[in-house]
């Protein structure tokens, strides 16, 4: 990765390159993101998300570069490094970080007084936008978790940031408070032009808020791009497991069929046909089958385009309360599949533990077992 000869990003782009070691953890990452909207930095715990934000804020120093549009915050090529208080950055920490010795108003004024630039966002506007009016005279200790995070966001905004960094701002909150704060983020997203970098390990959150996505794991970047594009591709990756229920099956390549561009895979329950895989016959592969790609039938369907019809037995049916859906776990002889069906279908077919069914698998993703 070249630090020295990189072209300057487009006027509103954010360009970050960091490499270095912290204890036994190594971060090596480079990404360039749009200078507006919300970019999510997504990855499992311990993958380096927070470190990236700390480096951008200047709270931590690793070798690299950090360009925010026309502003240079760090450029090791020129030996340039701005101290954190010389960067127009807003930082909302994971847990409430309000100054306990100041009231809500005091916390907000602390930021406003030190902003150093003519305010684009006024005190009253921020208080209004985040609904802080009734909280102003309260002490941080007297606020709920959600209220504290709202104040922390308001305080960061009043420092008139060029870039807003949000480090898992919902992780310390209960479900109700999360929902409330998310809706405030949606307001900010709509009304402000400040770019935001939003760290999260929750794909549902990312899918809801972000325009752009940087996926990281183990201190490196896996993918980045517009959120829709990346979410599709995430289905290929185990980091998405929390987002899409499914199962993983281990199988071996039994044969290739070059004529139809197919491969036959053998697993304990039988043979599965998939589009041609790049693996030798006999090699182990790992399949990922998402619950929403599995349908169930109580009789073997005939004249159907779906190739993978696997006989099995229902192990368990779990209905999801307050939704249209139920999930059935089906034993296909040595392996299990999850099927996401409607509760109505489960009732019509009379599915219960022990029912003989045929699992119809619409689509399969796979990766080499060796990669795990």
């Amino acid at each position, binding site marked *: 990765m070249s630090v020295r000869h990189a072209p300057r990003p487009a006027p509103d782009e954010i360009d970050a390159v960091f490499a270095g070691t912290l204890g036994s953890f190594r971060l090596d990452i480079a990404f360039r993101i749009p200078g507006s909207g919300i970019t999510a930095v997504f990855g499992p715990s311990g993958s380096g998300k927070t470190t990236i934000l700390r480096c951008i804020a200047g709270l931590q120093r690793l070798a690299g570069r950090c360009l925010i549009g026309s502003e240079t915050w760090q450029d090791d090529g020129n030996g340039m490094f701005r101290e954190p*208080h010389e960067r127009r950055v807003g930082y909302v920490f994971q847990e409430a970080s309000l100054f306990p010795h100041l009231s809500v108003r005091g916390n907000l004024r602390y930021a406003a007084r030190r902003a150093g630039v003519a305010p684009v966002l006024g005190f009253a506007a921020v208080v209004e936008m985040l609904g802080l009016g009734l909280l102003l005279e309260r002490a941080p200790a007297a606020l709920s978790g959600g209220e504290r995070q709202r104040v922390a966001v308001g305080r960061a905004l009043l420092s008139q940031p060029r870039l807003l960094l949000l480090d898992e701002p919902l992780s310390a909150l209960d479900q109700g408070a999360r929902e409330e704060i998310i809706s405030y983020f949606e307001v900010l997203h709509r009304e402000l032009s400040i770019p935001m970098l939003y760290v999260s390990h929750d794909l549902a959150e990312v899918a809801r808020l972000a325009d752009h996505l940087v996926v990281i794991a183990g201190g490196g970047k896996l993918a980045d791009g517009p959120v829709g594009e990346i979410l599709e591709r995430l289905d290929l990756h185990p980091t998405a497991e929390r987002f899409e229920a499914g199962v993983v099956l281990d199988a071996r390549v039994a044969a290739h069929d070059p004529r139809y561009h197919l491969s036959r895979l053998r697993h304990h329950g039988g043979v599965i046909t998939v589009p041609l895989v790049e693996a030798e016959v006999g090699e182990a592969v790992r399949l990922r089958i998402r619950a929403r790609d599995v349908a169930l039938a109580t009789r073997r369907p005939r004249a159907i385009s779906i190739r993978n019809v696997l006989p099995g037995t229902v192990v368990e049916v779990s209905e999801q309360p307050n939704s249209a859906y139920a999930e059935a776990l089906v034993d296909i002889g040595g392996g299990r599949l999850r099927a996401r069906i409607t509760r109505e279908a489960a009732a019509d077919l009379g599915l219960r533990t022990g029912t003989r069914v045929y699992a119809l698998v619409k689509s399969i993703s796979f990766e080499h077992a060796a990669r795990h």
Partner: protein
Amino acid sequence: MSAALWPPILLTLQLASVTTVILLAVGTPIAWWLARSPHRWKEAVAAVVALPLVLPPTVLGFYLLIALGPSGPGGWLAGLFGGRSLAFTFTGLVIGSVCYSMPFVVQPIRDAFEAVGDRPFDVAATLRASPWDRFWSVAVPLARPGFVSGAVLGFAHTVGEFGVVLMIGGNIPSRTRVLSVAVYEFVETLQWREAHLLAGGMLLFAFLVILAMRLLERRSVRWRP
């Protein structure tokens, strides 16, 4: 109350007040450095600051006597102001008391700075507060319980010192005869009534200080978020 009681009381209060102010001014940067610096020798420095906790006061007083005397740096300093020595002077007592009471001020302030943690400083830095600004707007207010404990302990400890004072200050009425020395003097000269009054007063004072400290500690627990 006998007129002989007042000079040592006033002198003691004066000595303890001056000493406490100097201790806060000198001890705070030391406590800050000990709390925040990653320097690997800092525990050695902390040990030097803490020496008076372990050393017999007479040993500390002996070294101070040499340092403050005509052939030590104290004597050289006194020479600048037309004196010969800092030993047996009020200034000498203040210097001795500062050394002696230093750990009682530095330790609580250091603990308080450490209890603040990094987070508030990171927050302040991202809100454009310079390091100096962060110290005054975040560190000092958040470490306030430590400052209060340090000041009370430093003051009380200075009031109670005896060995060091006797070694470097002697027993000169209205100049170096402080409370603890006066009690000793009254007992030696069999003035039991005066000795009782001073000793009883000290007992009450010590009780009130310790009680105040306990109450402050309980308040400061609530202070933490």
